[in-house]
């Protein structure tokens, strides 16, 4: 009798088993997916329901309440969906920016030594994050439509500015092209200020000399557009909204739907971001603050130069989730009539009857937007990560 250990059969080998399980799982997923798709196609064919994305090229035939690009009912469904996407992106981008600012302020306020400030911040967070966002949207919308006067009795706080339940009407500059030059100058100045700040930081790191980059940057941002405006002949003509017939004409509008959606989403998400910011700051050991103070840094400098850069590393990953939530929550717009992607997509689905293609398209677009945000935030996360030395 041989004393050799019996040879393990291949199916008992741990490595082989792991591979086998994975192959089985992938196979099952593919099989289920194939079954669902082929079954759907067969059912659609059996019921004589048209399939395919051909409907995207057809004339939409419905109007959209607000759009950053010109849209006419004679345009295609594809363009209508693009308008919906742009509307969603506008709300998402503004919402992300505003909720980050408000969330950071409230988060820091919760840690404030001032009793009143800290309690107010706590009240804000605990109220807003515990009420469903849909209810908040309906609340803001009702507040605007029921609380503000009709167009003919609009508030007129500043000349040319009207506030009514039709929205906020603002005058727009009518400078015959100069307004675009001023806008370009503003963008250029912001870019210049950012570069100035980077240069100042590098110089301080190398030579220790500080440079008033904030003051210089502000001067640049205000000064350059002003200079261009003066060079353009200092035009002052404004296109002022005027009450004509049913509504105001001229100028630009912030619609009640947009205002309610942006306010609701921003305040709701800010309450979560406040908690994330607070947790990030608390994660930095108090010794850091004490050491920085001992070195003679001012309170503001301690926060800006020592605490926040370290807190950011804790803050960014959960912050990404909040940005994604805000973007996806913007689909609740359909409840208060803002023509976002889902609203336009729903109308398209209902008029063409192509529910499966339409929903697939909506999901693909949201997925692409969300992945885009994730990629950006992951890049930013890597950038702020602790560099191992």
């Amino acid at each position, binding site marked *: 009798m041989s004393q050799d250990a019996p040879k393990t059969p291949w199916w008992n080998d741990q490595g082989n088993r792991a591979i086998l399980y994975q192959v089985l799982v992938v196979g099952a997923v593919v099989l289920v997916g194939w079954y669902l798709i082929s079954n759907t196609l067969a059912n659609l064919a059996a019921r004589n329901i048209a399939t395919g994305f051909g409907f995207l090229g057809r004339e939409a035939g*419905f109007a*959209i309440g607000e759009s950053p690009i010109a849209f006419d009912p*004679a345009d295609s469904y594809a363009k209508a969906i693009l308008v919906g996407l742009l509307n969603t992106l506008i709300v998402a981008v503004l919402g992300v920016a505003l909720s980050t600012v408000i969330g950071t302020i409230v988060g820091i306020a919760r840690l404030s030594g001032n009793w009143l400030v800290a309690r107010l911040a706590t009240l804000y967070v605990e109220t807003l994050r515990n009420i469903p966002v849909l209810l908040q949207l309906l609340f803001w919308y009702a507040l605007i439509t029921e609380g503000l006067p*009709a167009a003919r009795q609009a508030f007129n706080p500043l000349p040319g500015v009207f506030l009514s*339940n039709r929205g906020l009407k603002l005058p727009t500059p009518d400078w015959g092209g100069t307004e675009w030059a001023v806008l370009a100058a503003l963008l250029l100045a912001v870019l210049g200020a950012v570069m100035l700040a980077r240069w100042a930081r590098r110089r301080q790191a190398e030579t220790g000399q500080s440079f008033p980059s904030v003051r210089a940057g502000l001067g640049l941002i205000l000064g350059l557009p002003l200079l261009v405006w003066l060079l353009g002949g200092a035009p002052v003509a404004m296109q002022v909204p005027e009450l004509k*017939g*049913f509504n105001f004409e001229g100028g630009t509008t912030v619609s009640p739907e947009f205002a309610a959606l942006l306010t609701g989403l921003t305040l709701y998400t800010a309450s979560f971001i406040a908690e994330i910011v607070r947790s990030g700051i608390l994660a930095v050991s108090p010794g850091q603050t004490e050491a920085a103070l001992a070195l003679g840094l001012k309170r503001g400098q301690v926060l800006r130069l020592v605490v926040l850069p370290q807190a950011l590393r804790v803050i960014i990953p959960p912050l990404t989730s909040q940005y994604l939530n805000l973007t996806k929550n913007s689909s609740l717009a359909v409840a208060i009539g803002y023509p976002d992607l889902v609203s336009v997509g729903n109308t398209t689905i*209902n008029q063409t009857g192509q529910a499966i293609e339409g929903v697939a398209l909506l999901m693909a677009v949201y997925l692409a937007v969300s992945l885009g945000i994730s990629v950006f935030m992951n890049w930013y996360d890597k950038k702020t990560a602790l560099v191992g030395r």
Partner: protein
Amino acid sequence: MKRLALLATLALFGGTVLSSQVQAGATFDAVKARGSLNCGVHTGLAGFGAPDDKGNWAGLDVDVCRAVAAALFGDAKKVKYVPLTTQQRFTALQSGEIDMLSRNTTLTSQRDTELGLNFGPTNFYDGQGFLVPKKLNVKNAKELNGATICVLPGTTTELNLTDYFRANKMDFKPVVIEKQDELAAAFFAGRCDAITSDASQLASIRSAQASNPDDYVILPELISKEPFATGVRHGDDQWFDLVKWVVYATFEAEEKGITSANIDSFKGKTDPTVKRLLGETPGLGKALGVSESWAYDVIKQVGNYGESFERNVGSGSKLKLPRGLNAQWNKGGLIYALPIR
């Protein structure tokens, strides 16, 4: 009743010999086996499909569900109501979640063909109108240039509205809100100058949601044809036939003056159409695959079309809609039953 049963039995024997075998379809058999009808209705539109204060569904469209259940099971109560939004309704029907869609749905060529549906007889002729506050002093729809208009999304309403304004070279701003209650609330709060929908629906909204219904007026123009019909999905002609002839039976009963109250007094009358409706001349029930007393059950339990109309949307209801286009063909309307023979 005994005689009816006897006749039915005789008809069963006779029918087997004389008529060809009825080919039962998938939906028909499934409903019969289930013992109740899944009927897609509105989430809550007074007069057409809404639960009353006791939770019982009532309305003109609901009566079609009840009539089909009465014809199939001899009991109008054997219906499970599935409330659907405008956006869910076709998917629910296509996927088989419901057996029929009776939810003020406009019959259009696109829905009939591309969506894979069949539509029964039109049970309500409506048209799209505008509801405006009287204080705006608007007398007709042509004066609405530049107006902000509240509209439900994803309906023919939205398309008709756009077409009307394009055809008349006028501008408007739509405010599109998914839920009708929210939409009407926005209108009554003054967010829009006008709200557009089918005229019957506007009457319903005005009576249910306006703080003072007299402050609002429906403009005289109707900008579209909106024939409401009951939808079924393709693939079961027997089921389609049943739904179709149940609706016609309620039309025919009104034309002949047969109501739920007086139907028994028509027994033994000589009018051949009445005899067929009451099942005294057998054959039709067999051909439809239901009992010979199907039409009797429908009229006895649900009533004829005129009764249903007056009870739900006409003079006996809050909506107080006139018969108008929905009168019988011989009284200036469009309600016309195909010959039942």
